[in-house]
């Protein structure tokens, strides 16, 4: 790289980073605004809903108070009735105390007009003459009863109820409103109203008093009643319809405020900042990372090309601008593909996040509904019980009065009494079960003996049961809801003497219970994003509830909801009446409750964001392209460097279409060594860069998956996708989850393989073999395991696939035999150690080095660099030629006339030199003696030790050396020739030579004697 290039590179990196930052800022800004706009909308809806909830709470408060007051007023009235009708004669303490017990009051008083106490159940404690108690004096006006009011006295808080006895006296009931408080607490306090309300996923609703700015309700109990202003909420923010960020107890929330005047409070829906921002961060980061990859690839690719280009192809454009063809063409392609990727990734990420967010909010919502229904179930029981108690008390009062004053058992008095008690009718029965008196239209009733009859139950009262509360039933005649309560009358001895029966029309109870009906509950649920909630009966498959009334009771399937969508925990798209919804379901009771949001509303953000990021990326890429492909300077012509033959594993490959491409040579593909960077083509370099970037991404995702508990909270989208709590099928979650798992799988496999490679390097050949096998094995296992798991995510039943007509049958059916035998053979090769990686073997007529032993095949590299791939089952008749040493030997013929001893002595001198000349020789050469006294020559054998890989070359070298030696010493090697006449002149060996030869032959025998001889016979 020259200086100019370096400068350009730095410049381009800076440009890339700037664009990355700009795009990041744009996306963050857009996403934040869009998320906030969405949040604002859904918060607004929530606030409207809260208004209703609070209005309901207020109403139920009024209602509860009213019904409580009615009960107490009727008690005061009964007390007045007791004195009016002479049930009790005077206002003595004893009488009033009895009244107090009967009426379950704290105190009862009889007062005159001015508030002077005529009688009281306890020592007079309140001064009723005070103006404060004027309300009581209302009883002397039009109405005989007074409205309830509460006074906080030194003795505690009491509610007062008055009822006129006569023109100058009144009965007053003093009641501790504890029971009322409890009732109110369970229905209409801030806590009960707000604690189940969630906003978004982790958001909540709280209330702040508009009077003293204290928290009326906050999920964190420590803050209850605390000062909201000192917790960080600013007074300016507390305005109706204000949407803003608030910091409460150190945490930031996006809040919507509503001022509820009736309740003197600000209701605030708060969503934690990280909920809005975390999804934004992940989405934007992934889009940015994609952009980063694309821009990095474009820039680096351009530089790789420029560094390696041989011909400087430039076209001169206007002025002094040159266009680089090769760079332009290639990075143009990369940029275009990259842009498409960015668009896809943006769209995909936006869809994924919108859908998963919706899914989570749906399931959150559903569990809210479930909780609500559960609450209502409990509430139902509680309310029924409470009303029964109240009715019973009325019956007891009636029974008391009628026991004390049996003479009142006539129609007129009973009508009076039933009006006071607020019941439909009061009837008196004698000990035979025959009606004595009643004010109801049904007279002369007798308790039935037939267990089937409604009145049969009351037989129990005749045999001494204290009281009986019947379930409310529909009256056959009037078709009205009625409930009968009976209380036994007793004679002086305490024996059952008939009973009093009251008939009530439990309209209030009915109303309350009706409001807890599934339909009422569901119709009260508001789903954001103009979604709907509906219920399908899990047995009949009919709509149990639907916002449009006419759909209820119709077959859900006929409206497009398929069988398998009618399950618990469904998450995905469904079609109702032709329009598509994104829905989640939950089984609650006998129904599947669905929350469905129109598909179009789910991922509303994705299009603007995709387009924005697309346009921004296009813009950035165009500029980068221009900067890279156009240059001002004319390029220097570089002399084409000569390309020598290198040892590069990269070779030119002629593709079927006659283009020449670089590829790794066959032999190097199974080697562990890495190609030097310089030897790679720009394409390979860019692929390496891409691989590295993807590896980083995969690694990050892998870390994220493995340590999900640490990095993501339980409601994060990341964990939602991993949890698999969505309907398995072909959908974006399955796709994403598969992607994540593949990342984990490949990272784990990669790491394991790296470790294996390292191990292989450290260990010997055997280790290498095992490592390579494991490597191979890991690959298959991880691919298979991932394939199966991912298929199951896509909703394919892999178990069945495996067991039945699936893969197994396929394997067995289609040549599984070979596969199985290959695998078995492979295992045998490994475990019996027939050969291992690096061995030189001959298999059939194929000789070469073992490169890899796989599960199915063995790969052998032959001397000419070809790779032979042999199925393991075909590996038979293996000759393993890997030994410590191989023997290279040659036979040389000597003329018969030549002195063998001379030759031998020459050999002794020459052998060390030969060894020096042939570096591959590890030991020797050795003289192995005379092999044969041949027809034309005396054949001697020379042998040397060398590596098997060098054997053949060594033999050739030996031959050469021997020829040279013989030439030097004029030793002739016979060859077929016709000697016409040439008398031989043989030299005699000298005595010294003879001696030497003798010794040499002996020595050689000794030295080489222990080496295996039979090898030689082969040649």
């Amino acid at each position, binding site marked *: 790289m020259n200086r100019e290039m370096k400068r350009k590179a730095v410049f381009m990196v800076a440009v890339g980073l700037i664009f990355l930052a700009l795009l990041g800022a744009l996306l963050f800004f857009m996403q934040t605004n869009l998320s906030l706009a969405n949040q604002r909308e859904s918060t607004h809806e929530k606030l409207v809903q809260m208004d209703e909830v609070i209005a309901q709470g207020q109403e139920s408060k009024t209602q509860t108070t009213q019904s409580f007051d009615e009960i107490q007023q009727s008690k005061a009235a009964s007390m007045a009735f007791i004195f009016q009708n002479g049930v009790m004669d005077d206002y003595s303490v004893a009488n009033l105390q009895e009244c107090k017990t009967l009426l379950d009051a704290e105190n009862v008083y009889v007062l005159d007009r001015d508030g002077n106490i005529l009688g009281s159940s306890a020592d007079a404690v309140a001064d009723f003459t*005070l103006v*404060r108690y004027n309300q009581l004096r209302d009883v002397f006006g039009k109405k005989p009863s007074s409205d309830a009011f509460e006074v906080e006295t030194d003795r505690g808080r009491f509610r007062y109820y008055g009822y006129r006895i006569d023109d100058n006296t009144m009965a007053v009931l003093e009641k501790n409103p504890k029971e009322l408080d409890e009732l109110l607490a369970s229905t209409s306090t801030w806590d009960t109203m707000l604690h189940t309300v969630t906003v978004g996923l982790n958001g909540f609703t709280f209330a702040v008093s508009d009077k*003293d700015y204290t928290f009326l309700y906050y999920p964190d109990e420590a803050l209850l009643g605390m000062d909201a202003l000192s917790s960080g909420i600013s007074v300016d923010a507390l305005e109706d319809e204000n949407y803003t960020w608030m910091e409460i107890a150190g945490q930031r929330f996006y809040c919507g405020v509503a001022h509820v005047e009736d309740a003197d409070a600000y209701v605030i829906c708060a969503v934690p900042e990280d909920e809005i921002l975390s999804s934004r961060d992940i989405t934007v980061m992934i889009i940015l990372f994609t952009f980063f990859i694309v821009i990095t690839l474009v820039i680096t690719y351009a530089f790789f090309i420029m560094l390696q280009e041989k011909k400087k192809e430039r076209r001169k454009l206007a002025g002094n601008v040159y266009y680089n063809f090769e760079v332009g063409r290639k990075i143009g392609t990369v940029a275009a593909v990259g842009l498409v990727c960015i668009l896809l990734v943006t769209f995909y990420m936006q869809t994924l996040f919108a859908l998963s967010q919706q899914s989570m909010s749906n399931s959150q919502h559903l569990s809210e509904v479930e909780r609500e229904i559960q609450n209502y179930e409990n509430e139902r029981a509680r309310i029924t019980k409470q009303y029964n108690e109240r009715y019973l008390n009325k019956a007891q009062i009636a029974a008391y009065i009628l026991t004390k004053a049996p003479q009142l058992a006539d129609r007129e008095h009973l009508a009076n009494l039933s009006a006071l008690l607020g019941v439909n009718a009061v009837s008196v029965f004698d000990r035979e079960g025959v009606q004595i008196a009643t004010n109801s239209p049904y007279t002369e009733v007798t308790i039935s003996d037939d267990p089937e009859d409604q009145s049969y139950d009351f037989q129990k009262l005749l045999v001494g049961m204290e009281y009986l509360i019947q379930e409310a039933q529909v009256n056959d005649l009037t078709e009205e809801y009625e409930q009968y309560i009976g209380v036994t009358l007793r004679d002086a001895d305490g024996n059952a003497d008939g009973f009093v029966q009251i008939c009530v029309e439990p309209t209030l109870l009915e109303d309350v219970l009706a409001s807890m009906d599934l339909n009422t509950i569901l119709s009260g649920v508001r789903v954001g994003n103009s979604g709907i909630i509906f219920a399908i009966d899990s047995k009949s498959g009919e709509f149990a509830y639907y916002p449009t009334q006419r759909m209820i009771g119709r077959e859900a399937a006929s409206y497009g909801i398929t069988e398998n969508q009618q399950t618990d925990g469904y998450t995905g798209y469904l079609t109702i009446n032709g329009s598509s919804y994104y829905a989640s379901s939950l089984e609650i009771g006998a129904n599947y409750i669905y929350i469905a949001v129109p598909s179009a509303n789910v991922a509303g953000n994705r299009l603007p964001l995709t387009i924005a990021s697309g346009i921004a990326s296009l813009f950035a890429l165009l500029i980068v392209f221009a900067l890279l492909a156009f240059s001002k300077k004319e390029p220097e012509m570089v002399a084409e460097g000569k390309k020598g033959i290198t040892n590069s594993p990269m070779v030119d490959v002629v593709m079927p279409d006659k283009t020449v491409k670089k590829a790794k040579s066959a032999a190097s593909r199974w080697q562990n060594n890495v190609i030097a960077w310089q030897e790679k083509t720009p394409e390979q370099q860019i692929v390496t860069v891409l691989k590295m970037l993807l590896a980083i991404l995969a690694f990050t995702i892998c870390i994220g998956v493995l340590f999900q508990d640490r990095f993501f909270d339980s409601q994060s989208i990341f964990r939602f996708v991993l949890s698999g709590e969505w309907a398995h099928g072909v959908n974006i979650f399955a796709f994403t989850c598969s992607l994540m798992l593949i990342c984990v799988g490949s990272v784990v496999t990669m790491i394991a393989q790296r470790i294996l490679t390292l191990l292989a390097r450290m260990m010997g050949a055997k280790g290498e073999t095992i490592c390579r096998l494991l490597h191979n094995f890991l690959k298959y296992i991880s691919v298979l395991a991932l394939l199966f798991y991912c298929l199951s995510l896509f909703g394919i039943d892999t178990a069945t696939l495996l067991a039945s007509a699936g893969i197994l049958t396929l394997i067995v059916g289609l040549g599984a035999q070979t596969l199985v035998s290959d695998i078995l053979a492979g295992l045998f090769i490994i475990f019996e150690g027939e050969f291992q990686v690096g061995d030189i073997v001959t298999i059939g007529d194929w000789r070469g080095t073992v490169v890899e032993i796989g599960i199915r095949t063995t790969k052998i590299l032959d001397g000419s660099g070809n790779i032979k791939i042999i199925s393991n089952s075909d590996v038979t008749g293996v000759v393993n030629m890997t030994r410590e040493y191989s023997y290279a030997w040659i036979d040389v013929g000597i003329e018969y006339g030549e002195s063998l001893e001379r030759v031998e002595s020459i050999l002794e001198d020459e052998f060390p030199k030969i060894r020096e000349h042939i570096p591959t020789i590890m030991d020797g050469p050795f003289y192995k003696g005379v092999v044969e006294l041949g027809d034309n020559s005396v054949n001697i054998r020379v042998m040397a030790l060398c590596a098997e890989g060098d054997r053949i070359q060594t033999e050739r070298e030996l031959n050469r050396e021997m020829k040279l030696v013989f030439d030097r010493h004029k030793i002739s090697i016979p060859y077929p020739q016709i000697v016409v006449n040439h008398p031989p002149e043989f030299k005699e060996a000298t005595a010294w030579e003879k001696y030497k030869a003798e010794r040499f032959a002996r020595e050689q025998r000794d030295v080489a004697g222990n080496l295996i001889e039979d090898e030689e016979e082969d040649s």
Partner: protein
Amino acid sequence: MRERGRKKPAFFAVLILVASTALCGCSDNTGRGILKAGVRDDIMNFGYLNETTGKYYGLEIDIAAEMAERMGYAGVEYVTVTPDTRKDMLLDGEVDCIIATYSIAETREENFDFSDPYYTDSTVVVVEKSTLINSIEELRGLNIGTMAGSNASPLLATKLYELGIIGEEVISNTDTFTQYDGVSVTKAASYQELDVLLEQGLVDAACMDRCIAATYMDDDRKFLETNIAEQNYGVATQKDSVLSAEVSETIRQMLDDGTIDTMIDKWD
């Protein structure tokens, strides 16, 4: 030029003040030091002390802070005053000024300097609904509670006299109880006590400023329709002190530039 002219007196006031504080040596800080403001600690939205945090907040607190900043003080020290004590505390110099729902009244102007009113409130009568009292005329012969030391009692007496409910004569008068001809007035030591008296019926009605009453209102109580009087709250300072002109000018500015309106809106 007019602007400049207007600023001049203020500038001199500052000069004089600096000189005087330097002379008397009562300034314990360099520069303007800390302004000691007498404020209420029990009136929501005006002056309220959060006992857990020890922080005051409300309209008057904001005004005091803003005022002190504009006047160049380093900060404000809030001192709780009650209707009973505020007069003496200011006279004794325990506080530099009073911003404590202190209404501007002629009697008070004799002792103190007041700034322009920053808030106008009305004095009202609160009754328990159970008394069935609907109009001020029905108070005839009854016992009305007020807070001792507050401006409400004289205003009430004046109004009742105007309406002909009481006569001119004051039959008896002690620190806690005044018997007029027609109505008696019980003076409670604190608003809390007044609240209890009203609740238990020991007083039949209570007369106080609306902003104070707001704290004690609940569903069982109501205001009588007739207002007793308008009350203008101002910042009080020692009579003819150097601070008076300055406070007055600052409050004037804050009223003119809408600062106080914004604050009232904020605390409304």
